[in-house]
């Protein structure tokens, strides 16, 4: 099977249509399981009581906000270098979901910070760099929308996305590099997790659910973008007539 067959919008459109419901379903099931573990199975925390439970939303959203930016930038770079339309469409399709994840991470973090730290917001390195990530997503979408010609918009937005990648490691390592109010990572590749097993299980299931949601939302959105941008092509026109 030639996988490159699916690198054209015309062949990818029906494939995305078949895959999207699968990922929507997985997201719903994993989300339900994750929230059940988070609210009913995981124990209360020894110092934060129940307020720590927002971690089941906060951490998966924050992870996805960083990961989606990397994926978006890679697709944008591929589109820039290889001049493939579908790659740029994928980057454009992921931006709103990434911005949503960033907003959720900032919002839930604020709700969590008030009862634990005693403040909604501080300008420490972690919080500030995550806010810049939100601005980068918004900047990417605004720049793309401000240029009428799609291919030119793709190229300009791609450069912004690529430049912005520098921010992702800054967010991730900010709690290691500098004194921050934000605590360090509970889960990382270099050490064993510093949370109870059921808490960790709930968080990882929720992370998978957010991952599935992001794939489903990306596939659904890229279908709309393909239709919109290929509306003058023969195959899209034929579909409208049916």
């Amino acid at each position, binding site marked *: 099977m030639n996988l490159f067959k699916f690198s054209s919008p015309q062949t990818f459109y029906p494939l995305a249509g078949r895959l999207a419901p699968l990922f929507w379903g997985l997201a719903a099931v994993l989300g339900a399981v994750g929230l059940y573990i988070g609210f009913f199975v995981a*124990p*209360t*925390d*020894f*110092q*934060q009581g129940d307020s*720590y439970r927002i*971690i089941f939303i906060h951490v998966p959203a924050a992870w996805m906000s960083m990961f989606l930016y990397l994926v978006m930038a890679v697709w944008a770079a591929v589109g820039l270098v290889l001049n493939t339309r579908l790659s740029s469409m994928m980057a454009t399709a992921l931006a709103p979901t990434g911005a949503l994840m960033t907003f959720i991470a900032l919002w839930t973090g604020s709700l969590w910070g008030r*009862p*634990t*730290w*005693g*403040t909604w917001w*501080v*300008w*420490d*390195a972690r919080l*500030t*760099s995550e*806010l*810049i990530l939100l*601005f*980068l997503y918004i*900047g990417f979408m*605004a*720049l793309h929308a*401000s*240029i009428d010609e799609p291919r030119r918009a793709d190229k*300009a937005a791609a*450069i*912004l996305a690529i*430049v*912005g990648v520098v*921010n992702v490691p*800054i967010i991730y390592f900010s709690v290691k590099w*500098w*004194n*921050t*109010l934000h*605590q*360090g*990572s*509970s889960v990382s590749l270099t050490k064993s997790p*510093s*949370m*109870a097993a059921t*808490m960790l299980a709930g968080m990882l299931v929720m992370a998978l659910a957010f991952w599935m949601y992001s794939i489903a939302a990306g596939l659904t959105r890229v279908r709309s973008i393909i239709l919109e941008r290929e509306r003058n092509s023969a195959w899209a026109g034929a579909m409208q007539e049916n």
Partner: protein
Amino acid sequence: MTPRRKRLAMVVGGVAVLGIGAALILNAFNSNLVFFYSPTQVAANEAPTGRSFRIGGLVEQGSVKRESDGVSVRFVVTDTAKIVPVVYKGILPDLFKEGKGVVAQGKLEADGVFHASEVLAKHDENYMPPEAADALEKAHKAAQGSEKTLVMDKSSGGGQ
């Protein structure tokens, strides 16, 4: 709008977005990259004098004392090497506890006392059920005998 002017607007817009981002980063680097100073840094005169800054560390065991007016509280911030006495008038966050992390914003006055205008609790990245924390604490105490310590032991989930 001619294509050329559109291109110009695009370039200016892109540069502006990057500029704002970079400026925010640099701003964070300058004034807030070091979000707080440790008592050791304060003792070594690395903290700014004459203006407000933040100190961070642990609240020393047995140091929290309420003033007679009922709203002022005195405590000592330690990094186990040096200490800074702090006075604060206001409501403390729920997680403010002796032996736990704290970040206070305020000024170091001539009397050597840090007059805080804001006190925030800094919690660690350990999450566990209360029973597990109790068990760890007992094991910790058994291992140390009666020796009192303020050092946060990473493996024990915050020591005391």
